């Protein structure tokens, strides 16, 4: 397992804070998920109307992690800051691009991406940390580069996250995908990935 030092920003002050990105979801991370993240999610769901339920509130990361473990094509990531779990991601590198210009070429598909409840504005104002999603997108781009995909990534977005992928990440929206519950499908080209990586270097 590799640990990368990355930087988030405190939601309240904007100050940078050091965090660790692990290229694995370990039992310790799953324990943090089940003892902190999951209970907070359950409390929120119980206290709010079904229409306000987070779209990923039913995700069981223990099951998701188990079904991808051991497969060379699956890549799991955990983001930890100050001993707390901040975000999780599972990506798979056996996917093909759909955009004209890169159609049929390999890309990394982000199967599941989620930030901890305390990093979401609907749970906490201000959020505890900002920048978790950006770090995970960077990780996916690096996986793609390591596999020869040149930074190409793709994902089916839950409705609440569409703006993030289109506006903040600069991905291209290809429309609703009937084969994936009509979720909007986004792709990032090699050029967009390079641009995204360069933008992260700006102070």
């Amino acid at each position: 397992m590799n640990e990368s030092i990355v930087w988030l920003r405190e939601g309240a002050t904007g100050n940078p804070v050091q965090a660790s990105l692990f290229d694995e979801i370990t039992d310790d991370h799953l324990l943090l998920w089940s003892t902190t993240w999951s209970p907070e999610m359950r409390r929120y769901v119980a206290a709010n109307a079904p229409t306000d339920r987070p779209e990923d509130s039913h995700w069981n990361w223990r099951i998701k992690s188990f079904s991808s473990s051991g497969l060379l094509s699956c890549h799991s990531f955990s983001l930890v800051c100050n001993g707390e779990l901040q975000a999780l991601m599972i990506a798979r590198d056996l996917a093909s691009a759909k955009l004209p210009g890169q159609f049929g070429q390999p890309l990394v598909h982000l199967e599941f991406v989620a930030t901890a409840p305390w990093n979401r504005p609907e749970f906490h104002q201000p959020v505890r940390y900002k920048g978790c999603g950006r770090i995970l997108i960077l990780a996916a781009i690096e996986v793609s580069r390591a596999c020869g995909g040149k930074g190409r990534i793709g994902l089916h977005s839950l409705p609440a996250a569409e703006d993030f992928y289109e506006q903040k990440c600069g991905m291209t929206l290809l429309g609703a995908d009937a084969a994936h519950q009509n979720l909007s499908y986004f792709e990032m080209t090699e050029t967009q990935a390079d641009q995204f990586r360069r933008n992260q270097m700006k102070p």
Partner: protein
Amino acid sequence: MIAPVERELSVSVVSDPLKKTMTLNLTVREMAVLEELAAKKDLSKTATMRLALRLLQAVDAKVQMGQKLYVEDERTKDKSELVLL
């Protein structure tokens, strides 16, 4: 505190940085197919072989779980089972 933001890019995703080397002997036809696939997929020959390994492992895992692999004709919707050894 000034964030060394450049370090954000030092995301390491290679779980096993220790690589092992092997020599792969291919027939002329196999090499031609590998070169054709590598060009089509915009990959190096090494990356293409690694992709093939990941694909075979992923398919084998499904078959071991008792699942079947089908291919579907996009136009006619005809399905046929892909039998794997």
